[in-house]
């Protein structure tokens, strides 16, 4: 058999083998590449993937909730910068809560320097940061005579609409305090409050191979080398007969 024919056969064989072996990785690179190219339109930055396994893989600290805040009809559990209000996750990068208070048809969650106001169905009504609060840090939140009361270093302030404040507090204030979570419930809440990893970051790491750790990029370098071999062998198989003619 002539050398040229043997070379073409060997090239074809290896072209097919390499193409098949690296198929999954080529698809992975292609799909993640297209997604990253349109990351802004797809809102990849703002999407989080929540999984205990993923958090562990990325070395993100993962705490188990030990306490909860309760009112007559609502429950707040918090951990890892996330809140579960009546079983539904509300927001990302949330502050650690100081208390939970029910005022009329509004639910108020207090942090050191913010108040989050929700409707009974969990829809966010308003978020008041330090500029909309009478003083920060807040030390506690409570309810008295149907109004919201916040405790600060210079004394309490009261608000009926969680908008305008007056110094002082009603005679009787029920301050919100945490209650321990039953041991049996902690793991279930921990699963639901797993820290989030940005989808953009995950796709970027999958695309570059960093998701697989230190050796990942080297492995993907090898995949890139395979792709180069495929392109060159493909080009040679396409051009060689035509050039000979």
């Amino acid at each position, binding site marked *: 058999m002539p050398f040229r024919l043997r070379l073409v056969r060997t090239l074809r064989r290896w072209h097919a083998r390499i193409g098949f072996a690296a198929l999954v990785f080529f698809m992975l690179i292609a799909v993640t590449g297209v997604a990253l190219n349109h990351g802004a339109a797809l809102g990849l*930055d703002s999407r989080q993937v929540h999984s205990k396994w993923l958090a562990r893989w990325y070395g993100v600290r993962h705490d188990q909730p030990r306490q909860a805040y309760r009112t007559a009809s609502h429950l707040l559990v918090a951990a890892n910068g996330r809140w579960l209000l009546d079983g539904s996750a509300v927001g990302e990068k949330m502050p650690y809560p100081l208390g939970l208070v029910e005022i009329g048809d509004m639910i108020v969650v207090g942090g050191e320097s913010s108040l989050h106001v929700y409707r009974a169905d969990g829809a*966010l009504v*308003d*978020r008041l940061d330090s500029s909309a609060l009478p003083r920060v840090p807040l030390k506690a939140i409570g309810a008295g005579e149907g109004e919201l009361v916040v405790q600060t270093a210079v004394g309490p302030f009261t608000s009926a609409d969680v*908008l305008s404040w007056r110094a002082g507090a009603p005679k009787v204030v029920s301050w919100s305090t945490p209650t321990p979570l039953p041991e049996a419930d902690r793991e279930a809440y921990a699963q639901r409050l797993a820290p989030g990893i*940005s989808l953009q970051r995950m796709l970027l790491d999958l695309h570059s191979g960093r998701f697989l750790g230190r050796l990942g990029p080297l492995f993907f370098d090898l995949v890139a080398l395979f792709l180069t071999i495929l392109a060159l062998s493909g080009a040679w198989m396409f051009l060689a007969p035509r050039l000979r003619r």
Partner: protein
Amino acid sequence: MRPRLLALVLGLCAAQALGEVYQAPEAFVAEVFGTLPAPRVLWLSRKMQAQASAILNHPPAALRQRYWSDGAKSVWILEEIGKEELITAGFVVSQGHIDHVRVLAYRESRGQEVRDPSFLKQFSGAGLDQSDHLDRGIDGISGATLSVHAMERMARLALYFDRWSRD
């Protein structure tokens, strides 16, 4: 010497954590009105939520929007994500047109050019057209495209909210 160095390091860390806050919202409001008036509230009806979602390309963050007004001017402090972090901007609206805009806090690592007065000047006098878009084009800034888009969305929302607040 050491406590000073420690204070400097802690200060830098705090600034990093808070992002770049250039002006507190209440200071901006006080600057516009001369005093700090009591805030007013615009409750977002379903129709307003739907239109705000169309303007922002996502649902509005909250169901009530605080604003300040003396009858002639209204001030809207809005927040929107540029790429990954929130941009806080103050919009002063007068007679259905933007009087002036200021970026109060910028937390992204790139794209701070949206703070430049030469960029923000483009919003002065802008109003809304029939389809709730700005009635003029805003020149982009290379490297700050997403922040520019966020500023445009907030400007449209401020004008839209202002229209409802006067109804």
